[in-house]
């Protein structure tokens, strides 16, 4: 589980996530991990393996336009971890900015989330995937390097990772600012860009552009 994950209560001002995305070819994964280990130090929680199952749901009703997408996430490695509910708002940063900024709601749930979303709220599952990799934390910045896998369902209803979607590992560098506004001392955008600079040229991190 993400060591740096900060779980916020629902408040009026949503938390903001600042993030950059990229990918690294499998052949150079070791190089990247080595660099990340060097950058982030040997603190516990670094280079921690994870294997998360993502389920993406959207609203069933055609009346709600655009449809609301939410994600249900759980760890496959540890069955003691609760389900996590994630909601990402649309990108609000201007095109000239270097970093993706968007609303984020990330909360742990005590209920079995898929059942609650489908039966209780009327969501439909769109797609699912498994992200398998390693997480790092540098300061308040979380870096995850993971491979996106398609899911395979076994007879006993356990979900397992099947084939990989691509030959590359997804790299995500993100930090969350609570309450939406950064104080004067924090400059989340700068922190993200600094980390991105340190990972060059192994990974070319850029902002999320859904249009692409």
């Amino acid at each position: 589980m993400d060591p740096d994950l900060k779980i916020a209560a629902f408040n009026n001002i949503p938390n903001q996530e600042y993030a950059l995305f990229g990918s690294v070819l499998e052949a150079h994964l070791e190089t990247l991990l080595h660099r990340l280990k060097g950058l982030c130090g040997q603190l516990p929680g670094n280079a921690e393996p994870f294997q998360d199952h993502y389920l993406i749901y959207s609203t069933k009703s055609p009346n709600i336009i655009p449809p609301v997408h939410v994600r249900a996430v759980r760890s496959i490695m540890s069955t003691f971890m609760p389900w996590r509910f994630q909601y990402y708002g649309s990108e609000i940063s201007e095109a000239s900015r270097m970093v993706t900024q968007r609303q984020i709601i990330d909360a742990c749930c005590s209920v079995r989330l898929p059942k609650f979303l489908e039966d209780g709220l009327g969501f439909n599952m769109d797609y699912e995937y498994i992200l398998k990799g390693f997480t790092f934390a540098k300061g308040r910045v979380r870096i995850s390097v993971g491979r996106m896998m398609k899911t395979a369902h076994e007879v006993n209803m356990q979900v397992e990772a099947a084939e990989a979607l691509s030959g590359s590992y997804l790299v995500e560098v993100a930090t969350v600012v609570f309450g939406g506004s950064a104080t004067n001392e924090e400059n989340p955008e700068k922190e993200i860009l600094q980390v991105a600079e340190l990972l060059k040229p192994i990974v070319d991190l850029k902002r999320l552009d859904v249009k692409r």
Partner: protein
Amino acid sequence: MLRPQHPHGGAGSVSLHPNLTGGGLGTTAGSRAPQTSLVDGLDPVAENLQKIKAAISGLLQYIETQPDSLSWPTIMDRFSTISSQLANLSKIVKSERIPDMRRMDVIPFLVSAETDPGLEKTTEGRIPVMSHDKFPDYFRSKMEPEVEHRFQEAYYKVPPNNAELSQKADKQVQNLNKVVSALVESLSAAKEAWESKTAGLSKIPLTHDVNDTNALLLAMTTGKGLISPPGSSNAYPKYQPGFPGAGGQASQNR
């Protein structure tokens, strides 16, 4: 007025012909060019000189008669006029139509103490008499003895061409050259090494693929590549309400 330049220098080579009749001055082309073509060629030069003279006298008159209304731009204007005229003159003198005046002898035909109206007219009243007193000033092809003497003095001050000294200097120059060439060599070697190193670096295959990045992000945000095409058997895996997983166990643990 022409400044005679004698090719051979030396006052002794200026020959005097007091018995010859005619004007005060005569020129003879050392290059044996016909005299008429020389005179024709000199016309534009004289014309230009007249213009320059007029410009200079105009400027002087302006300065002397209107000292109160002097303005810097006007004076600069006039100066630029004169300078362009001078440039023009030097162009004419250098042109092919003008014979090389350096190679001409200028010989005074007559030196006399009496007023020469022809000469006076030619020189616009500046030289009425071509006397023994005047003509060295106009026909001099060497510097005045006094000036020459001062030049000599200056030359004496220059350290003599000492063989030992020059050898020393040569040695130092050689040493410096050696050092500089060694430096240049080492620098270029370093540059080459650096360039080959960076060239080798750039040869390392890319560690990331833009297409892969885009595919992964699309999959994450829209499910592209994850959603099976409709109609296939395993489209939309359906989770049963009793979906086993962490959630159930977690809630049981609470």
